């Protein structure tokens, strides 16, 4: 069966440390993968996109890796801050025969950064 798995337990880290979140998937072949941030009661906010032919992508304190052999993406936040506390969602993106993109989301991992 097709699955997207993110750590269901909250990740608690100390301010200044690097947070690493994992997204694993099975029986999917996505065109690319996205990471979103979601605060309670709000809609997801796009952070980063990485394509299947890219190994790593960076944006300021954020870094994403994508290993299509392992079917895994890692999302890193360096020098984490309490303001980074939120739920982080990974989403697999597929392009169907009509050229339309479709997103399949994981359940998300809640990150708590403590001062």
């Amino acid at each position, binding site marked *: 069966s097709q699955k997207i798995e993110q750590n269901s337990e909250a990740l608690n880290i100390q301010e200044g440390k690097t947070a690493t979140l994992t997204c694993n998937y099975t029986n999917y072949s996505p065109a690319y993968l*996205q990471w979103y941030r979601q605060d309670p009661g709000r809609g997801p906010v796009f952070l980063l996109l990485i394509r299947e032919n890219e190994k790593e992508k960076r944006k300021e304190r954020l870094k994403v890796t994508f290993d299509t052999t392992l079917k895994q993406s890692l999302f890193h936040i360096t020098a984490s801050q309490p303001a980074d506390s939120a739920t982080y969602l990974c989403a697999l993106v597929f*392009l169907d025969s009509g050229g*339309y*993109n479709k997103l399949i*989301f994981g359940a*998300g991992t809640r990150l708590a950064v403590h001062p």
Partner: protein
Amino acid sequence: DAGVTQSPTHLIKTRGQQVTLRCSPKSGHDTVSWYQQALGQGPQFIFQYYEEEERQRGNFPDRFSGHQFPNYSSELNVNALLLGDSALYLCASSRTSGGRTSTDTQYFGPGTRLTVL
């Protein structure tokens, strides 16, 4: 530049009732997707509208229907509400060019929190 807007913010209904949720896409976007997000879960794709037609649909029953207007805004209708329909309903917009999705990302609205009692 206005982002994606949704109304209402919160809604309380009882079982068996019908509900209509509204979405206005980001300026320049012509494609609207709707998602249902239950508590503690990721968003689940309901359907997508482009050129006033439904062009993709997720695994949701026919009780869920939608509409897109000439100004690209959209409505989500849910009939015969069940307790399990309680969730955050998200609208996301993107742009289609030449019949194909031209924006890599979807922009989400703040959502409508629906509670069914």
